[in-house]
Structure formats: structure tokens, C-alpha cells
């Protein structure tokens, strides 16, 4: 059992938890993920690590309530425990030798982009961040990004906060003005990452994406997380989750992410009924 030592609702649909897991906290690196099960008969879900405190022995996860398991997880309170928590899994984000980076986070993906931005800043790199949300109410981690970025664009689709538009707007402007980075690192919804890659491709601007496909074990055993990168099949759990965005077949990844729509909708509804809550 793994204790929830802190819980904070960052916005109505996104929750932060610090989980007591000293061995994982000791080894975790930005870009890696954990797999958890909320209770004894729970589903295994992967979540990318949003932070860690090696001294306190805690690992931070930030998740959006999108399905049955995250719904159940969100109903656990500070002081309670979750059944299983395993990691750190996957290959850490490559940060060596980067002097100038553009970090682009979308929605809850910002939670995963943040430790990468922080680590790059710590290593002395110039960090330009763009974070995007649908609307003001969904904004998270603005202060934290501001603290580790040389420049920061906050975007909302509806213009209710920061600048209006998606993350590609300031990116395109910068690229057009001749700005180049050692790397663009983008983490967020598949569609957003796809469009960031389409934007950087004409400039041959190296772009790294963080994939979060369906997986079961997270150690290379099931192959459920496979995706096509540069024409060959890769397993996100062991070969990634970071990949060269210009090589990733996003359309296939988007299709594969919708493998169990009926089951997921039904499970979500059942979980919501359990808590007498309306399905959003």
C-alpha cells in the first residue's frame, strides 16, 4: 500500500497527489512514468511522473479525471492509500547537452512538461515555455512554469486568460521570426502534439513528444503500447515514452488510443454512479 501524503485539486478536473514511495522517489527522472492500481481489483494505469522529492520519499502525480480509474483515484483522500504503485518506468527524457529548449505543454500534459522544464533550467539551459488550456478554469501550474522559464506564453482556446489561441500560435511566430532551439519538447493531447510536429517539421526543428498509449504491464511484456516510429514498431513503455515527433505515426496512435470506447464509457458511468455524480 502506498500512502497519499498530499492531495490538492488544481482545477475541477485535475488533481495532484504526493504518494509515499521512497524507492521510486530516489530513482525517478523527468519523462519516466509509474503504473498504479487504486484498489485490489483495479485496472493498471500509467501516469507520467510530475515530480519527486528524494528527501521526503514522495512521487507527485497529476491526473485528469477522464475515466473510471481516475474517478476512483480522485475519491481517495489525503492519508488514505492506493494499492499498487510501481516505477520508475520508461526511459528518462534526454536533457544532456541542451542549451536552449522550447517546452510546450497542453492541459494536464503541463504536469509532465514541468519537471522537464525545471531540470533543463537546473542544468543551465535557456527555457522557453508555452502552456495551453481550453479555458481559464482549467489553467494549472502557471507560477511553477514562470519560475523555471525565460519566457512563458499562457494560451487559452477561448481567450479567457493569457493569449487567445492554441500553443502553435506563439510557436509559429517564433519559428517564423527565425528562432531555433536545440529541441522542442511537447507533451499533451495527441492531436496537439501532432500539430506541434506539423509546425516544426518545415523548419527541421528537432521535436520530441511524450507518448502515453494504452498499456498493461509497462515493462515491455504486453506490447499494447506499440506505435509506429520511423516505419518500425516501438514499445512506448520501454523504448519511450519520448520519441522523435517527426517520425511518429500520430494517426495510428490516435486510432489505437480509442481501442475500448464502449467499455470506457460504461465503466466511467458506473464509477460516477457509485459516487452519485453526473457523467461529464
Amino acid at each position: 500500500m502506498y500512502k497519499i501524503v498530499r492531495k490538492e485539486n488544481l482545477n475541477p478536473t485535475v488533481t495532484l497527489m504526493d504518494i509515499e514511495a521512497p524507492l521510486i522517489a530516489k530513482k525517478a527522472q523527468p519523462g519516466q512514468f509509474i503504473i498504479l492500481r487504486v484498489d485490489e481489483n483495479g485496472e493498471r494505469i500509467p501516469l507520467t511522473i510530475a515530480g519527486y522529492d528524494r528527501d521526503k520519499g514522495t512521487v507527485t502525480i497529476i491526473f485528469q479525471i477522464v475515466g473510471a480509474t481516475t474517478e476512483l483515484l480522485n475519491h481517495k483522500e489525503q492519508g488514505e492509500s492506493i494499492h499498487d504503485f510501481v516505477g520508475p518506468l520508461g526511459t528518462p527524457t534526454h536533457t544532456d547537452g541542451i542549451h536552449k529548449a522550447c517546452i510546450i505543454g497542453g492541459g494536464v500534459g503541463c504536469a509532465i512538461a514541468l519537471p522537464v522544464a525545471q531540470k533543463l533550467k537546473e542544468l543551465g539551459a535557456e527555457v522557453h515555455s508555452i502552456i495551453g488550456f481550453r479555458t481559464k478554469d482549467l489553467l494549472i501550474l502557471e507560477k511553477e512554469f514562470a519560475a523555471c522559464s525565460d519566457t512563458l506564453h499562457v494560451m487559452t482556446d477561448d481567450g479567457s486568460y493569457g493569449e487567445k489561441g492554441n500553443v502553435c500560435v506563439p510557436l509559429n511566430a517564433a519559428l517564423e521570426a527565425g528562432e531555433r532551439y536545440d529541441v522542442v519538447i511537447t507533451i499533451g493531447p495527441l492531436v496537439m502534439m501532432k500539430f506541434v510536429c506539423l509546425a516544426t517539421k518545415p523548419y527541421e526543428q528537432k521535436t520530441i513528444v511524450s507518448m502515453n498509449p494504452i498499456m498493461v504491464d509497462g515493462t515491455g511484456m504486453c506490447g499494447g503500447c506499440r506505435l509506429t516510429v520511423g516505419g518500425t514498431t516501438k514499445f512506448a513503455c520501454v523504448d519511450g515514452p519520448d520519441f522523435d515527433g517527426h517520425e511518429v505515426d500520430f494517426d495510428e496512435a490516435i486510432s489505437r488510443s480509442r481501442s475500448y470506447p464502449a467499455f470506457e464509457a460504461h465503466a466511467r458511468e458506473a464509477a460516477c454512479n457509485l459516487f452519485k455524480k453526473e457523467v461529464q
Partner: protein
Amino acid sequence: MAKFNMNPKKNPMPSQLPYVRNRNFEEVELGYTEEMAIDEAKRCFGCKNHPCVSGCPVNIDIPAFVTKVAEGDFEGAYEIIHRSSSLPAVCGRVCPQETQCEGACTRNNMGEPVGIGRLERFVADWHNAHSTAAPILPPKNGHKVAVVGSGPSGLTCAGDLAKLGYEVTVYEALHLAGGVLVYGIPEFRLPKAIVQKEIDNLKALGVKIETNMVIGRVLTIEELKNEHGYDAIFIGSGAGLPMFMNIPGENLKGVFSANEFLTRSNLMKAYLPDSTTPIHRGRNVAVVGGGNVAMDAARTAKRLGAENVYIVYRRGMEELPARREEIKHAMEEGIIFKTLCNPVELLPAKTDDPKDPAFGSVAAMRCIRMELGEPDASGRRRPVAIAGSEFEMEVDCVIMSLGTSPNPLIKATTPGLETKKWGEIVADENGLTSIEGVYAGGDAVTGAATVILAMGAGKTAAAAIDKYIQSK
């Protein structure tokens, strides 16, 4: 002892009827009664050179335990088996007896061999149902051993060392101990309660099991050795990496590795109606491959409600590598065998609408017919494609069961650990790797093989580890 039973045939195994069982996940074979077991045991001649014992990878004293069964002393029989095997209830169910003990049985000269596997299973089940005696705990010898992986080789190694007084900790990557016994082999062939019972027996011996520990990530072999004070380490991390065919369409939705399909059903219990883990229930399912895992996947798909389940295998019926028993069971349950047939491409559903659930899903499999040519390096006749013989099968689920290779994680994080071409860890006949004090066995060394061979390797390594630590 009463006189020999001269019946040329084994006592048949009571089983669920094929068209009942292919709709449920309960165990197919129900096991002998005491009377059946005694009657079957009396078929053993007690021949002088007992070839069965040399046919057994862990050298169980088979004639001795069979004699005890014939005498009705089932606990006595258990004690004999348990001296050599830590997991008799498992082996009685999943060993390929026809190529091991039973294949060597003298009674093959005049009919069927003694049903040694069925008797082993009976004895282990009888013990688990009747025995209440707590195990005798050996005095601790003050030495610590770490075991990586809780599959058959790891559990066997752990059990043997615990019996010798070692403090043993088993590290398991998944949330449940048992390795392939819980994620791979289905409930209807090996009930999970039986695996749990065997694991509980080990815990009663003092073995500690730490789940959710991916060695190589959270702790390395070096750290176990140098910082956690283990005198020796056994790596039994298995061969968990699934192989694919690398044909077009293999990443379509509805295409799975057998590992994924079986893990969802077995470990995650996705076959249960209230499961939190989804599983794809296909109507027309093709399982590509002909081993035991392919049979397990096909029979699971059938039980999940498929109308047609095909085994697609590039060689002929004779060459199927699965146990005869599994092939027989699969055929009885209505699995359709398409042998001498090899997939060349998987085709998507004909829709361009991304909102259509069928979008990006597999809808058909293009295959080519094969014929058998000259024997290849493995001694089996090499399958050769017949030009122009392509045809299409309508399928909405394809399960690739082509074998597995060892997980590279431990190799990648353990400097100095030598491995072979497919990542198999190099180990000598005692299981010693290229690093002092680090032993390995099971599929991690051999590549995908059987439960009993892994157990044999765990046993050998346990003896070698004991010798190594005692001589330090």
C-alpha cells in the same frame, strides 16, 4: 500390495464436457477420485531401471510416490514428490508429460503409460485439501539471497533456499506473484487459487515476496548485491517480450500479442463481467502460432464468446509444438486449425470515418498457403510458401503467439552481465552468470521454454548458491 492393473489404457480424466466448458473459465479437468488414483497407480510395474525418473527434469522419485498412492498413503506420496518439486499441483497440470516421465514409461510397450501427471496432480490436490501440518521451519543460517522474478524458476529457487535456512526475498515486477503461472496460463488450465496456495506454502517457509518491484529500474542487481547485503542473487525474470511478424497492418486495433490478451484475461481478470480492465471480445478470431500459448489464447477467445476461433500455423498438424493434451482439448472445444498457412498482411475495415468505431480496426487477414520442404536446423520440415495461393480470412481479432524473448531491462542495467543474441543471459550448468554471486535460470537463460525446465533450473541454481555461500 494388491496385484497389478493390466488395463492397457490410463484411467480417463473426469473433465467438463467440451461444449459446456468452452463457455466458462472453470478448470477443464476435474481430477481423479481416490479410487481412480489407486487404480491408476496399480498400473505401474515398478520396473527396475525406472526410466520415468530420468525423464523428469527435477528427478522426482516417481515409482516410490506411485507405490504410496497404490497403498492409499497419499500424504506419504506427497512427501516424496515434495522432496524434489516445490510446485507439484502446478506441474501435475502443465508439464508436457508425454515427452518426459510418461514418454519414458515402460508401459508404453503395451499400451498407454501410467498417468504420472494425473497422479502427481491428485497427490498435490489431496495434500492441499487435507494437510493442516505447518511446515517445519529450518534454523536460519544468517545469509540473505534475493530472487528476481516470482515465476516457476524463482519460486523453486526461493523454496529450496528457504528450506536450507536462507533468508529469501523475491522481487516481482507485477502486483501479484506467480509470473507466467498467473499472467500467462489461463484459469481453466491452472486455477489461480492453486498457484496462490503454492505461494502461501512458500511464505509459510519464511520467503518474503515484494511485489511492484521492477529490478533494473527501482533497484539494480548491483544495488541488491552491494547496498542491500544479499550474499547471492538469482535472476529468474523470464522471457516476457512478445514477438511480432512485422507484416503490414500489425498495429491495427484488434491485433494483440498473446501476452497482452492473456494478461488481460488472466492477471487482470478481464473475463469477469465486473472487471475494471477491458478485453476485446472478437467474433472471428485468428491466433497465429501453434504452441501452448496459442492454444491458451484460442481457448480463451472462444470462452469470451467468439463464434469462430482459428489456429493459423505455418507448418502441419504433426509439427504443432503444443502439448498433445492441449491440442486435443482445443479441437474438442471447436477451435478450427488452419495449418500450412501463414499471414502476410492484416487489412483494415473499409471506412474512412474516424468516428466509426471500426476505423483503424482489423477486418481481414491475407494468408498464403504453405507446404513442407526439407528439414531445417531445428529438425522440423521447413515451411515454404506456395506461389499464388493467397486468400483472405474475415477476422475482427488477431492474436500473435509467435514466442517471446527475455526482457532486456536487467541486461541493460547490469554492467558485466553477458547475454546471447536474443538477450538470453549466459549461465553455466549451475546457473552461474558472468558475475560472481549472480545466478540465473528459466526462460531468462533458455528463451521461452516450459514451467518444469524453469523449475529444474531454479533447483540447480539453489544448490549452487548454497555451495557458493557456504564456501565463502
